[in-house]
């Protein structure tokens, strides 16, 4: 019998089989899941969508490569996480933002928010949201200049405001809800994406399609997005019942701004969110509550980005507190 040499056998600790998944496959699926939203962005906002997506993605991947090289670490750009950050940042930008600002935001996202913390796995905050928030506080005018959606061949951009912006401005100025608001923004427009807003946040149906794909392929679990959406829906219902003239109805709260993009694509970033299921639910509830509070009482019309970043900062704490009882231990065993 011809027996091969045992010296070439692999000797490793068990287990000897493993699920056929990897970080790059997960990131690849996130990119696939963003295609419908990206498609809608191109449909409604034209070349700007492609320009910003390209600028952010290329900058992020190059910045990741350069940072790793300078820090003399594994290059690691083949895990696709930098590309995901790039696309997500682009989808969180207003369509007319100058390219150089998008490039700057991408550099902040990758170099400061991710690589200075140690790279993938070690960053405390969602890099794309840090990039977006940096741009929002640095260039408040450019980051809140919106254009009305149009269709091919994309007529000259008409500057306008987002639904949440219009709502907040009217309430601040007149103490009344804006007239014709619900005629101006019909539910079907909110679903298809035919409304002003960040590139990737407007097309609710596209985002839900991508979310379904992520849920089916088990890249995300329901815990964070559904608890976040449920909290917003519940809080919005209470506010609306209390005073329908001053508060948006719950479905408008869910379908405007960046709620769906945030809940399914940003608040589910694995690195910056809790690892336990109870922790994930807490995280989602926190995101929902903070979003509502900023929208209702804050200075900004929209609070999804801030809510997720604030909850990111609480993730280590949630991971310590929201633990399941270990098998065979009494329930009151104290958290370490």
């Amino acid at each position, binding site marked *: 019998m011809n027996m091969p040499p045992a010296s070439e*056998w692999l000797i490793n600790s068990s287990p*000897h089989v493993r699920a056929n998944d990897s970080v790059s496959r997960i990131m690849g699926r996130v990119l696939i899941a963003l295609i419908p939203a990206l498609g809608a962005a191109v449909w409604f906002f034209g070349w700007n969508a492609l320009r910003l997506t390209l600028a952010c993605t290329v900058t992020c991947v190059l910045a990741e490569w350069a940072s790793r090289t300078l820090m003399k670490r594994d290059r690691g750009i083949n895990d696709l996480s930098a590309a995901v950050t790039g696309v997500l940042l682009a989808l969180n930008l207003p369509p007319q933002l100058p390219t150089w600002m998008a490039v700057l935001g991408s550099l902040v996202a990758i170099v400061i928010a991710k690589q200075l913390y140690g790279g993938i796995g070690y960053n405390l905050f969602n890099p794309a949201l840090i990039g977006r928030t940096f741009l929002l506080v640095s260039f408040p005018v450019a980051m809140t200049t919106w254009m009305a959606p149009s269709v091919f061949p994309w007529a000259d951009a008409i500057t306008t405001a987002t639904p949440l912006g219009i709502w907040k401005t009217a309430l601040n100025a007149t103490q009344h809800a804006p007239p014709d608001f619900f005629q101006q923004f019909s539910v079907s427009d909110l679903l298809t994406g035919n409304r002003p807003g960040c590139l990737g946040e407007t097309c609710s149906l596209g985002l839900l399609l991508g979310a379904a794909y992520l849920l089916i392929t088990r890249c995300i679990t329901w815990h964070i997005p559904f608890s976040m959406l449920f909290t917003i829906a519940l809080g919005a219902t209470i506010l609306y019942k209390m005073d329908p003239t001053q508060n948006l109805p719950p479905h408008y709260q869910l379908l405007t701004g960046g709620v769906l993009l945030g809940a399914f694509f940003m608040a589910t970033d694995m690195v910056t969110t809790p690892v*336990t299921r109870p922790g994930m639910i807490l995280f989602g509830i926190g995101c929902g509550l903070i979003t509502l509070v900023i929208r209702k009482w804050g200075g900004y019309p929209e609070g999804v980005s801030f809510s997720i970043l604030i909850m990111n900062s609480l993730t280590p704490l949630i*991971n310590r507190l929201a633990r399941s009882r270990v098998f065979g231990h009494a329930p009151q065993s104290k958290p370490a």
Partner: protein
Amino acid sequence: MNIISALFSNSGGIHPDDAKKTTAALPSVVAPIPPLLAVSLAQHLGAPSKTLVKKGDTVLRGQPIADSAGFVSARVHAPTSGKIVSVGLRMTASGRTAPVIEIESDGQDQPFTTEPPAGDWTTLPPRELIERIHQAGIIGMGGAGFPTQVKLSPPPGKTIQTLILNGAECEPFLTADHRLMVEQAEAIIAGIRVLQHIFKDARVRIAVEDNKPDALAALAQAADILTGDVQMVRLRTAYPQGAEKQLIYSITGREVPSGGLPMDVQTLVENVATVQAIGDAVIRGFPLIERVLTVTGPAITQPRNIRARIGTPFSDLIAFCGGPRGPIGRLICGGPLMGIAQSGLAGAVTKTTSGLLVLPPEREAPFSSMPCISCGRCVDACPIRLLPCTLSETSEAEQDTAAEDLKVMDCIECGCCAYVCPARRPLVQHMRRAKARVQILRKQREAQKKKQPV
């Protein structure tokens, strides 16, 4: 016999491809007795058996060649007749060095005794039944190798109310227990009768995963002769459904306390092969000298379920299965999730060898040093509800008290966490390292305590 489904659902666990189709329907075949057998004296958990023979002795099949060396130890018998050619330390399939007795077969396979035990066993007191089991060298054949007579002798104050027969066989690839249940259902049920005599009034639960309906049916039919509270339990197929604590939870809804034993929740779990050996020992007077195991995997020419003598070298088993098909990448003793990678063909069958897995070389390295991305999949998969991702990092950083606080000592090393990890981190290895370090820490604390004046 009525069949119920498991009443309680374990948290965690994984659903790997069970890969059992290759061998599930293959009747077990008897392997030829090899010319040279290597019988380990450390097949069980506890003190290695002390040898009763020396080089040059001739022995007969079933003759004791090593005896228990303490309370938690086991007797070992000659698997066939022949001459002792060496007694000494060598590497075994466990990856550790242990005393091994080598026997050169004389080809006669002459038995030591031919008489079945005298008298009606059903009239014997439990103590004597347990002694027969001890004499036969029976240990837990599911993998742990705990001496059975110890398990059957709970200390005063502990009672056994539930007797669980473990036919889960949740490791992928392995079909040895499956075939045993199909082919030897009556012998297994006979073993249960013996256990029922030892633990009168204990309820019996015969548990089989639902991917083995033929085994469930065969046992259910054979179990009709049993009296008392007996039920078949159909378990949901999941890994690690057959792990002792998980199995007890599935059936009784009770958790074995941390650091405790099944008897702490009035339960006894025995693997089907062990129970069959118990029946053979008590009723027919057979010592444990052979077992059924599965030789399988993509890199073996003819996968088989084999009834082999203890001490049969792995090289003989692989030859019996037509040799390797293509290059071997890994040889695993046991299943793919908890089995032990072999460094060569020096190993031999022990009472706990459930299979031999012959795997081709992999394109990708099995593990990487990529950072954890905190996806939480390991947390979902852990049947003990630990935080493998966090423990892996404390292990790397040698934060031993943190690991202890995170209950690393409760880890059963089932491998679910490493199976699901998309970053391919060697999580089980990290757990083992942390456990070893915590054990040292505890010993140091003990020593510190002793030093201090009271």
